[in-house]
């Protein structure tokens, strides 16, 4: 297969990837988009086979390895519960990162195959691209592993900080640049391996100071990194599909991080420098408990909602924890049978990753045209009888509007306080992710329903 034809096919596969992301602009087109992505990948792999053209026994091994990887991937994809998406994504990122490192290593050891010079005499440009790809890939790898461990709960979510941490990171960063410089100058293998090892360390050090709750931002950031690593390798391999994809994934991750930071009204640096979510929750918990709180049970809630004309459901992280989405859907069905108008309000950073709540509701067969974004529905709270807040907390906290001292000040919130009455399903008065108390709990029109979200919702169904 001629180099030109090959390049055209890689271009086509890059364009199919663009169309894959484009499809996600609406649920209707999204499935077709995913198909485009799969076709693009098939084309890229297919033409690579044809271009190597060497159908030796090695070829068979490649197929076997693809099948092995593919089976593992497929099993994971079918077995994983929807609530585990954040850690799944983190885990997958680590694989992309490591794959990038491995490809860079092969290219370094065997430059002739990639047309980038000969061992010990690799083109400088390729060497730079390759080492950038390897370094970013390595950082992505270990960083994503830490994120995975924290999200999975295997490692404690609390930030690990120590004296001189930022200084150490800075020093390592400078060392990385120095290593790349010397590698290009001398092409001594040691520098290359050191570069990778140092990058592994940087990946760990960058992520450990960040609190478990900030992991979603970290995941997107690592997503973006994996894209840039792929693009770096794409330059080395002179492969259009990889360059286009790398750029796409790179911007995609960056934009998602930005959207999340914006949704939390925090700066990206604030997240990355870490230490947030260091749980001084204990301090805020005590001294507040004495304030009077209206405590209700499932029957009260059922009564209130049955007699309402419109109810807005506000799901949050607690719904994911309790896996309450299916019960919730049943409750809504029951309410609808009673003639109550029900809709769902999703805050951009509800849950622990962007779009988290939407996926869970979709899993429970909630039609997506009943689910609304913050801007679409926020004005409707004023005309709504009951807001049923299930496992959400920060995203309803009016302190974001009133107290400039609060860490979430300026974050747009769902105006549940404007509805006639508010039902809060959570297990205690303890605060959410941001660790700050929620004034709403103590208001007159609020009824607290202390229980696990799933259990409470099921109880309400029974009383309806």
């Amino acid at each position, binding site marked *: 297969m001629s180099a030109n034809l090959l390049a055209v096919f890689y271009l086509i*596969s890059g364009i199919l990837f663009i169309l894959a*992301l*484009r499809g*996600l*602009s609406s*649920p209707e087109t999204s499935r077709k988009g*995913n198909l485009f*992505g799969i076709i*693009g990948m098939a084309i890229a792999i297919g033409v*690579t086979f044809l271009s190597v053209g*060497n159908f030796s*026994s*090695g070829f068979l*091994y*490649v197929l076997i390895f*693809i099948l092995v*990887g*593919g089976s593992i*991937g497929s099993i*994971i*994809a*079918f077995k*994983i519960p*929807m609530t585990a*998406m954040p850690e*799944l*994504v983190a885990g*997958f990122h680590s*694989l*992309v990162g*490591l*794959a990038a490192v*491995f*490809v860079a290593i*092969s290219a370094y*050891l*065997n430059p002739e*195959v990639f047309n980038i010079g000969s061992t010990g005499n690799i083109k400088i440009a390729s060497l730079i691209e390759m080492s950038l790809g390897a370094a970013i890939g390595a950082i992505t790898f270990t960083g994503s592993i830490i994120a995975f461990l924290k999200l999975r709960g295997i490692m404690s979510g609390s930030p690990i900080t120590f004296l001189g941490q930022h200084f150490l990171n800075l020093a390592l960063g400078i060392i990385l640049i120095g290593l790349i410089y010397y590698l290009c100058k001398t092409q001594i293998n040691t520098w290359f391996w050191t570069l990778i090892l140092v990058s592994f360390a940087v990946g760990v050090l960058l992520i450990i100071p960040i609190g478990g709750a900030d992991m979603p931002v970290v*995941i997107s950031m690592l*997503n973006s990194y994996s*894209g840039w690593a*792929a693009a770096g*390798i794409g330059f080395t*391999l002179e492969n259009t599909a*990889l*360059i286009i*994809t790398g750029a796409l*994934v*790179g*911007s*995609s*991750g960056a934009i998602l991080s930005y*959207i999340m930071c914006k949704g939390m009204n925090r700066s990206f640096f604030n997240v990355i420098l870490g230490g947030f979510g260091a749980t001084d929750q204990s301090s805020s918990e005590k001294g507040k408990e004495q304030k009077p709180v209206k405590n209700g049970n499932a029957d009260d809630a059922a009564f209130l909602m049955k007699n309402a004309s419109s109810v807005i459901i506000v799901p949050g992280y607690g719904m994911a924890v309790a896996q309450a989405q299916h019960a919730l859907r049943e409750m809504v069905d029951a309410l609808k049978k009673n003639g109550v108008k029900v809709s769902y309000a999703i805050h*951009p950073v509800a849950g622990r*990753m*962007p*779009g988290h709540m*939407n*996926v869970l509701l979709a899993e429970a067969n909630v039609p997506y*045209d009943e689910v609304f974004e913050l801007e679409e529905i926020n004005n409707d709270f004023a005309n709504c009888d009951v807001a049923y807040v299930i496992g959400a907390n920060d995203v309803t906290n009016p302190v974001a509007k009133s107290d400039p001292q609060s860490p979430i000040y300026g974050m747009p919130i769902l105006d549940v306080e404007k509805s006639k009455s508010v039902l809060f399903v959570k297990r205690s008065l303890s605060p959410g992710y941001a660790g700050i108390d929620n004034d709403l709990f103590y208001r007159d029109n609020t009824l607290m329903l202390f229980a696990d979200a799933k259990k409470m919702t099921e109880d309400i169904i029974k009383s309806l």
Partner: protein
Amino acid sequence: MEIDPFIFRLSIFILSIFIGYYVVWSVTPSLHTPLMSVTNAISSVIIVGAIIAALAGNSEIIFNKANIFGYLAIVLAAINIFGGFLVTQRMLAMYKKKRKDK
């Protein structure tokens, strides 16, 4: 007077960043989770490098030092490709519109 292909690749890279920017902003927020998983899958197109590395050189010694990394990368990338696309497919299949007959 020939232009270095690198310049062209740089152009392609920069233009793709623009496209990425626009394409991702146009993704509806409710599909942000599938977006993360699908970008994961497509960034595994790095498998093409792994395949070239694995099949490189002399076909007698199948697992030499350089090739072995290629094979490892193939497995990792394949996990991602299948896992990423399938889990995305699974998620997207769940997004349904309200049925008319209800």
